């Protein structure tokens, strides 16, 4: 039981919820008002949905032993793009307008993902470096689209994406559910998941087994861009506006954190979408909790730092060795001659 990879993340989540329950007994209460459900738990799911989306895409990228730093910028760009095309149209609430805006924004986000993929798989640039480019330039592009202002749209139909509700639940939860299901099906019902894990774990061996690793990488970065795009739509529609400067700020870091908490190693290989989901929920619950307790919300950062460190240390072999009382000293593992070397490399 303790060995199960979801055990510790679930414990943390349960612990957080328990703390909330003790601190504010009506934390779990869910009320029905005007045909909508209200309550802290619903809020966590609702506000956490953009992060969950971004983290789903990030999980797959990290599984190929890559990373995507540009998701925050992509969130800002797609939000800006959608709001711009809606605000330009004559009838901001026309269904066609909304559909075109959403479709073009999503297409753009997929293209941005493809760009990252091309740099990584096509040019062979390290993922951190390749996606750094879009991370830096992307904010500028978002502001270029919004012309440096906050574009506000008056469109109840657009607002529905992020703030509407379906069957008494926030609509964004359904988007997340669909995307999560899509990602799970795509990776577990097709062979994509197997290829991703294989490429992330051993690129050379995968190539020799006949896997087209470039195509896999392209697809994964594109999917990650698309996820970030959806998150961008939810965020901007929720507030009916687009802010090129601040939308999606630090999302890349939160998403990476969620993935790592969920048990996917930054070295690539095995990935766990359910783990990521729990990781993202932990982060969101933490934020909500800190708000509720009345501590300045910015202090969440300190807690996040501690979590990152703890997770990294737990994943570090040397640290575990240290805990078990036999440190990493004396082993000659650092010398290249000791490692199995491939003479053809």
């Amino acid at each position, binding site marked *: 039981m303790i060995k199960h990879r979801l055990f510790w993340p679930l414990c943390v989540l349960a612990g957080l919820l328990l703390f909330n329950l003790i601190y504010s007994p009506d934390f779990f209460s869910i009320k029905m008002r005007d045909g909508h459900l209200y309550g802290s738990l619903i809020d966590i799911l609702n506000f956490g949905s953009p992060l969950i989306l971004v983290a789903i895409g990030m999980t797959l990228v990290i599984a190929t032993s890559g990373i995507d730093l540009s998701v925050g910028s992509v969130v800002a760009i797609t939000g800006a793009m959608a709001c711009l095309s809606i605000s330009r149209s004559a009838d901001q609430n026309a269904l066609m307008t909304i559909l075109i805006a959403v479709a073009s924004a999503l297409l753009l986000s997929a293209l941005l993902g493809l760009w990252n993929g091309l740099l990584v798989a096509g040019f062979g640039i390290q993922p951190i470096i390749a996606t750094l480019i879009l991370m830096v330039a992307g904010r500028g592009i978002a502001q270029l689209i919004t012309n440096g202002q906050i574009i506000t749209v008056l469109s109840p139909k657009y607002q529905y994406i992020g703030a509407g509700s379906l069957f008494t639940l926030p609509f964004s939860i359904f988007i997340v559910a669909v995307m999560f299901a899509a990602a799970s099906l795509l990776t577990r*019902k*097709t*062979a*994509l998941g*197997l*290829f991703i*894990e*294989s490429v992330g*774990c*051993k690129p*050379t*061996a*995968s*190539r*020799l*087994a*006949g*896997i*087209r690793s470039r195509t*896999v990488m392209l697809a994964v970065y594109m999917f990650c861009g698309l996820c970030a795009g959806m998150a961008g739509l939810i965020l901007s529609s929720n507030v009916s506006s687009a802010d090129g400067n601040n939308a999606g700020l630090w999302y890349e870091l939160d998403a990476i954190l969620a993935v790592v908490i969920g048990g996917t190693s930054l070295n690539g*290989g*095995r990935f766990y979408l359910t783990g990521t989901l729990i990781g993202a929920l932990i982060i969101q619950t933490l934020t909500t909790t800190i708000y509720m307790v009345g501590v300045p919300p910015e202090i969440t950062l300190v807690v996040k730092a501690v979590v990152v460190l703890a997770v990294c240390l737990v994943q570090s072999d040397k640290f575990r060795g240290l805990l078990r009382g036999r440190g990493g000293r004396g082993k*000659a593992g650092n*010398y*290249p*001659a*000791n490692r*199995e*070397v*491939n*003479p*053809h490399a």
Partner: protein
Amino acid sequence: MIENEPMLRMTGIHKQFPGVKALSGVNFRLFPGEVHALMGENGAGKSTLIKVLTGVYTIDAGRVDMNGQTIAVHNPQEAKQAGISTVYQEVNLCPNLSVAENIYIGNEPRSLGRIRWKEMNRNAERLLQDRLHLHIDVTRTLQSYSVAVQQLIAIARALSVSAQVLILDEPTSSLDQSEVAQLFKIMRKLKSEGLAILFVTHFLDQVYEISDRITILRNGEFVGEYMAQDLPRIELVAKMIGKELSLLEQLPKQSGEGAERCAEILLEASRLGKRGSIEPFDIRIHKGEIVGIAGLLGSGRTELARLLFGADRADEGHVQLGGYRGMMSSPRQAIDLGIAFCSENRKTEGIIDDLTVRENIILALQATKGWFRAISRKRQDEIAEEYIRLLNINPPAPEQLIRHLSGGNQQKVLLARWLLTEPGLLILDEPTRGIDVGAKAEIQKLVVTLAEKGMSVLFISSELEEVLRVSDRVAIMRDRRKVQEIQGGAARQSEVMQAIAGGEQR
């Protein structure tokens, strides 16, 4: 030669790793002014011995004396201080630093903490000119020079700390003929200056050209120390390969029915070659034939296989296979043409550690089907069950992570992976290395059965007996060249060994 006292003497060296005895009771002597070749096949213990000498490993038992005094080195720095310097096969210098820095870094001339660049460059130039006859711009980065020059710079670094013992670990493996000649000229010069040189190489010609003395190791044990001029090549090869008595049951004789089966040509390569890796070669493989590749490590056997599979790209020649004629541009193309390849590097190029046995088995088949047409889980389970039973994979647990399996069982999983793609040609590079005798026999038997069913096999192994037993025909490689082909049935061990050794018999 005057038989004076050895400069370095290693006696009764034992080194044990978890599960493996890497060295047991090895002796080694190194005399000043002499080149001493350390010979042995894979797993003989050469690299372990060198690592012991350079302080990367500590020994479990035994003694190391240097100039009559017992020494104990615990890390490369201590070895260096003791006067033992090493130049590795893959140049272990910093490509981004200048030549002069690579020679002196960590030991730069300084005043008040400030590095005196001019003096360092001057010293480097002088060192390279005087001792290695190398006239180059020492302020340029290391990476702007060829591997051969880098190798010499590495030697210069070793010399700069007034080394007495110089270890050259396969320095010639990536050099061409003229570069080797240059290196040997310098080795002779250093030798005449009284340096003791330990030389490791896989090229027999080079051993006889440069060495005075030869020590042979096999399976971590000391076979013997000989003067080079007194040891005929064929005997050297015999001692390296060993004549281990077979624990394997007798396999059906190949040659008889082989001739009938081998009518149709499956694959033909002509003038296929890659500069710096393997000389152009021709090879023809018939349907249902087992072609063995014999040769020492580094003779080009793996390179040959990799060109056929498209793992490396050839730069001349072509392959004819079915209706296709051209070069293999990628493993993917080769797989689509019905070729399968089990790499000798099982750990880095074979298994995917994070995946289960089942996933590792279906990987190549799934790759040919593409990502969308997934093999159903039910079918996957059936396949895994079937092959686990067929190949007797132990433990018979398809959901076990492959990294928890023993080497032999990992190898069987890889075999299963490729058999599943029903290849026309199966290339096996050292399929039985590092696995236990039982699994070895099973794999050999399987290969023969497969050929009987019409599959062609290219069988590469450093164990001569194994190659001879399994193959219909044996191609012999020496010094990155295909030198001869011998019919399997007729091939006698001595004949093949002679071809591997090359040169005239002494």
